[in-house]
């Protein structure tokens, strides 16, 4: 995931935090309109007996944001606040920990870790091979493989410095991963419903196969709240592996025109810690508190609803930050390679989920 927050201060006479207010209000308005659209369209369909598209608020909010961004645009006044969407995603994930029993989380994490390792091997092999076939540079293919197998944008950002890739390569890789995240967001729920996947199966699948954490969370939420919970837990396991995977690529590229990011064990441990997504620790800590019955049932519900509010701001931001023109400029070949990678990973993950999900009794 990319870090959506910026820390530059405003002018000497303005409170820096005020820069974020207009954009935050826009995120809230777009998100709330998304929930109203879901409720109103459902009510209208019920009242008139017509089969209107039953879209979840997640998709309404993202579509609305996308339309705003790509028609009238997002004025500069709103951009600092709109760019904070991943900050809200992280808060939402930490608070979501209240809805998990630690034992379930460890079981889910253990199972998904095995599946993630298989997926990673498949994604890496396919993308590096197809990248070679399409004449992509080795570093661009590596970035696409890192982004597809682990955590989308933030893994690419961590990988960029480590394998000494140039800005153009990382720009292509990020654009391709974001574009495919958006495709997955709209296609995965349709496929899940067509295959009659259970909420747990769908959550596992989305957590394993959708590239960027915001899109993974939204894809799960577009299916059901339970699918979202499972998707976030599985994706957090994937995210936790960023440091190790990037370190592996860095070691490979250090003798092939990259740079040595960490020479000794101490430096390697420091690198893994630096790239580790700290909000995963918060998620586990809150889950441990919930497991210890620190919260009442009503408090767990309130924390869960706060998490939904935080996700709502994030989903609005996903749409408002998605610039179709920028995606179109990102180049055709990286997109095709990443798309083939996504198809292979999605198919492989789905097969693994169908094979193994019988072992998961959760929630």
């Amino acid at each position, binding site marked *: 995931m990319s870090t959506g927050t910026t820390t530059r201060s405003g002018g000497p006479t303005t409170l820096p935090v005020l820069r974020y207010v207009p954009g935050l209000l826009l995120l809230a308005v777009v998100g709330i309109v998304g929930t109203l659209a879901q409720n109103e369209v459902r009510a209208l369909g019920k009242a008139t007996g017509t089969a209107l598209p039953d879209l979840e608020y997640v998709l309404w909010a993202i579509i609305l944001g996308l339309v705003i961004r790509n028609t009238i645009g997002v004025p500069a006044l709103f951009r600092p606040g709109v760019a904070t969407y991943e900050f809200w995603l992280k808060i939402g994930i930490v*608070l979501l920990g209240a809805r998990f029993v630690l034992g379930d989380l460890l079981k889910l994490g253990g199972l998904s870790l095995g599946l993630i390792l298989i997926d990673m091997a498949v994604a890496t092999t396919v993308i590096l091979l197809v990248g070679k076939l399409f004449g992509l540079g080795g570093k661009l293919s590596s970035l696409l493989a890192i982004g597809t197998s682990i955590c989308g944008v933030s893994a690419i950002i961590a990988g960029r410095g480590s394998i000494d890739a140039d800005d153009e390569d990382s720009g292509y890789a990020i654009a391709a991963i974001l574009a495919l995240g958006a495709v997955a967001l709209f296609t995965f729920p349709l496929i899940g419903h067509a295959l009659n996947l259970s909420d747990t199966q769908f959550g596992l699948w989305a957590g394993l196969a959708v590239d960027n954490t915001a899109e993974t969370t939204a894809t799960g939420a577009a299916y059901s709240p339970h699918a979202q919970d499972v998707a976030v837990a599985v994706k957090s396991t994937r995210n936790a592996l960023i440091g190790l995977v990037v370190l592996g690529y860095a070691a490979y590229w250090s003798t092939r025109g990259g740079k040595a990011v960490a020479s000794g064990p101490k430096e390697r441990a420091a690198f893994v810690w630096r790239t580790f997504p*700290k909000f995963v620790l*918060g998620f586990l800590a809150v889950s441990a508190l919930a497991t210890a019955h620190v919260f009442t049932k009503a408090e767990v519900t309130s*924390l869960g609803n706060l998490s939904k509010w935080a996700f709502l701001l994030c989903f609005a931001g996903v749409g408002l930050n998605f610039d179709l023109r920028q995606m179109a400029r990102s180049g055709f070949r990286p997109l095709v390679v990443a798309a083939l990678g996504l198809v292979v990973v999605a198919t492989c993950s789905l097969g693994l989920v169908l094979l193994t999900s019988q072992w998961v009794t959760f929630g």
Partner: protein
Amino acid sequence: MGAEPEPKPAPRISADWAAVAVAAVLVLLAAFGLLPTITFLVK
């Protein structure tokens, strides 16, 4: 003349830690029974 000491960069925390800190405040409020009932717009 000695050079001016370079100003120290302002202490910054990562977005990850900032998110954990904000969530921690809400979790502490809940743990102490001070979090009001929060509802969501979609059931």
